[in-house]
């Protein structure tokens, strides 16, 4: 999850944050990290670029991007499916 946090920081240009500042279960949007809809698009691109995962169903978005942990779980599940 630490790598994923680093990737999120770079992708979203969160210069003032370190990976340890982002809680595993901290909400990414609104009251948590305060991300918005443009960040959601950036995170979709991140999944595509780093993990070759295309988020095909838009309804999955709120679940997948709930926190770093839910993102990591989604990536793991996707990688397991591929294997």
């Amino acid at each position, binding site marked *: 999850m630490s790598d994923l946090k680093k990737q999120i920081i770079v*992708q979203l*240009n969160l210069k*003032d944050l370190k990976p340890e500042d982002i809680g595993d279960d901290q909400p990414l949007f609104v009251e948590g990290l305060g991300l918005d809809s*443009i960040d959601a*698009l950036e995170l979709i*691109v991140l999944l595509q*670029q780093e993990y070759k995962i295309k988020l095909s169903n838009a309804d999955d978005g709120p679940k997948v991007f709930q926190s770093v942990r839910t993102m990591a779980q989604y990536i793991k599940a996707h990688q397991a499916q591929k294997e």
Partner: protein
Amino acid sequence: MDKKVYIRSIASISPQKTFGDMMSTDELLEYAGDKFTCVEPDYSKIFDPKLIRRMSRIIKMGAATAIECLHKSGVKMPDAILTGTAYGCLEDTSVFLTKLIENREDMLTPTAFIQSTHNTVGAQIALILKCHNYNNTFVHRGFSFESALLDAMLLLNENENTNVLAGAVDEITNNSHRILSRFGLYKHHASNRDLLLSNSKGTMAGEGASFFSLTNQSSPENIAQLVAMATFYKPLDIEETEKNIVYFLEDMSTDMNDIDLVILGKNGDQKGDKVYDHLSHSIFKNRETIGYKHLCGEYPTATAFAVWLASTILQNKMVPGFVGVEKNGSPIKKILIYNHYERIHHSLFLLSA
């Protein structure tokens, strides 16, 4: 124009210390090489950190200047935001195009794309202010600032009790500087201290952001009056330029002898400076003249810095030390600015105290 246009407040981020707390216009900041770089404030003190992460340098420069200008004016919500920029948000454009190539037109991130348009600065100012009023960006190379200002003047002439925020911003990026250098626009080993006297090929690249809070309401708080502005395109020869300047003053019922100071756009390029040198010995012969591009460099919206300088002189009733000219004698009440960009875009501004 029926109504008078007043400058209520000004703000500028330039290669000199012209902004906010760090303002110090006594000493010239020296630059060697072929370009200037803006002295920028600590933006974390101006913007919400969540906003900053999506703002490139030009957006921060433009928005900070606009906010500071508005703050000084006491106007909470301008009736219009008008921005001039020749090159727009080059850094974001460069990021977007690079990713477009590297990722083979796939997986493009939205931020650089959204922020790469020319009107991003004007839009960002409106977003920060939550201002839904008239908002326009003018991209007309060496007339970009002039066009924004003309729109501002027309709005102020057509409406009562109106406040307009108008300005211009342009940045140098590594890519843009590399490309423009290939056209032979810049000297290789120049120094801004003697730039205006260098009389050789090329100049030094400049950048900056200057904003003005303009109003048609008379007030002792106004720092100057923008009496008139005019532009002319590709004059045939120096004589035509000379005539245009004389007509401009005649139109304003102003005699050359009424002008206390002339600010010229000399930039050290021998071809471009010919007209300034000629005018200094003809119609401006007995006028006090100063240059300003040794302070900010050459760029298409440099005239915004010239208007900032003229306003500063009228406000403080003296020429700041960094200009490097001792101006003694009668107080400065009327300033004429004459500038050309690449001998193509010529502009005139008349300001009075």
